[in-house]
């Protein structure tokens, strides 16, 4: 049997990992509280209204999580310019022909599996990067619609930046509906995201799941050298 020597590659820096988990926590909180705001649970309660503030708290948690989500998102955009090459913004926005070719490759190999074997990517593969880009756009729309709705009941300067949103849509109702629909985008994304992490970990054994803990991925020496040669050839071509 051919035994592989593994190279440890530091892929996700600490700020990227912290971003990921704050983001995951914030989105989970926002989806749960958001769903409850859209469809409040029916609760039997014998006391008086002043004795509790349940829905008030649900909304409060939603708003706090929203602020955390935005700050975290803004930080991640910043890190896209100063972080390592796996965190760079170029991973997410298709600018080259090669990017599209790689997306197509990933589709063939991993999604439709019409092509055998595996696709090698140390950080994000092109398809994943592009999906994250779409997710970032969804983040943006969710922030704009959410704070647009929030602006009417807030005195804060940040919410004040979004007073143009409702006039753009004409009324609150349309903004609400879009905000509600996009919540499902996040739920679907999460389902697929978690599945694919397991898929890659299971298929390739490179520590896909744990990489978001310690930041490392473990690449076979041959694959590592091949990747290195590919990178060198590319930078030579670019020069």
């Amino acid at each position, binding site marked *: 049997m051919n*035994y592989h020597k593994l190279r440890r590659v530091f892929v996700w820096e600490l700020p990227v990992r912290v971003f990921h988990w704050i983001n995951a926590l914030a989105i989970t909180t926002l989806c749960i509280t958001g769903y409850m705001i859209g*469809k409040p649970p029916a609760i039997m309660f014998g006391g008086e*209204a002043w004795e509790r503030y*349940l829905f008030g708290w649900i909304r409060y948690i939603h708003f706090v999580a929203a602020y955390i989500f935005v700050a975290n998102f803004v930080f991640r955009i910043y890190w896209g310019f100063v972080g390592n090459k796996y965190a760079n913004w170029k991973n997410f926005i298709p600018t080259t022909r090669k990017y599209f070719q790689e997306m197509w490759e990933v589709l063939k190999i991993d999604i439709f599996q019409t092509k055998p074997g595996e696709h090698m990517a140390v950080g994000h593969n092109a398809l994943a990067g592009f999906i994250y880009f779409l997710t970032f756009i969804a983040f943006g729309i969710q922030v704009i619609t959410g704070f647009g709705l929030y602006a009417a009941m807030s005195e804060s300067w940040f919410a004040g930046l979004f007073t143009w949103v409702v006039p753009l849509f*004409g*009324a609150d*109702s349309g903004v609400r509906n879009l905000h509600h629909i996009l919540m*499902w985008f996040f739920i*679907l994304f999460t389902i697929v995201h978690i599945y694919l992490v397991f898929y890659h970990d299971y*298929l390739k054994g490179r520590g896909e799941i744990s990489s978001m803990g310690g930041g490392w991925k473990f690449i076979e020496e041959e694959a590592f050298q091949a990747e290195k040669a590919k990178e060198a050839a590319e930078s030579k071509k670019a020069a």
Partner: protein
Amino acid sequence: MSTRPARTTYYEELRQRGYSRRDFMKFCATVAAYLGLEASGTAQVVQALSDKPRIPVIWLHFQECTCCSESFIRSSHPIVADILLDKLSLDYTETLMAASGHQAEKCMRDTMEKYKGEYVLCIEGSVPTEADGVYCMIGGRTSLDILKEVSATAKAVICWGSCACNGCVQSAKPNPTGATPIHKLIRGVPIIKVPGCPPIGEVMAGVLVHLITFGKLPELDGIGRPKAFYSKRVHDTCYRRPFYDAGLFVESFDDENAKKGYCLYKVGCKGPTTYNACSVTKWNNGTSYPIQSGHGCFGCSEENYWDAGALYARAQPFPGFGIESDADKIGTAAAIATGVGIAAHAVMTNIRKSKLIHDVIEEGKEAEKEL
């Protein structure tokens, strides 16, 4: 009507109609309060209505039901109806003027010429644009034609009600007459939107008094509505708000919670998305408003309220999936489909990538044995 004296003030007209100064002062104080002025503001209102000549008004009716006029003449203070409507809009208003036919049209023309750039144009109703506007003709002319001409030399345009502000029911899908709100048809003249179906009479009076007192438009929000009346949601000042914050909701109109007066959010109350003064000013001399009588808010002052979901449901239809759909139904179906897709993909992976998976597992097992 042709023998009207030069230009009397509102106060003079009032005294002629038999109101006392006390009535007048009460009215001024009430309106100043509605406008959100401080106590000293009352004096400004008094002075304006005593000294300033009455503003000439042309009040046009297009595609509407006249509920705005009805609301206006039933506002809590009789002076509103007597002076602001009767006297102030005497120049031209199809509903209440004595003149008719050519005389009425001449009346409007006289006002337009005599008070060019001074008169206020009040509009009830939307304007049909389909079939060259034949769906609403007055005196042989289309409403669009009349609107363009009369608005061109107006000082300001006040859009009464949802029809004029956002098209209301006649502009709901499929909008056969091409009913269009006023702000989309005219340019270059200040527009105040006073939406609602109808708007509250006191709000209408307040807007007019503001215009008279300060000689300029009240402060407007991003949509063009006076901030004094439309900056808060019905929900924000609703007396049932504590039930909402406590998470206590009416589940259906005939349940125990409805009797207890819980929040109507889950039975489709649109208070949380509706900007209006109903829960503060209330209706019929401050007697009540829809939510107080056990019925959720329709959101009648909001744009597109006829098409933005059912009147008794919170959730709105998912675009393109019919009126029965909502984001949660479509989302749940999509999540189930995603789950099925994932299961299929997992099975396929184990079949088509079996060599790859086998190699990784074998390598790991070997290492385990060696240790």
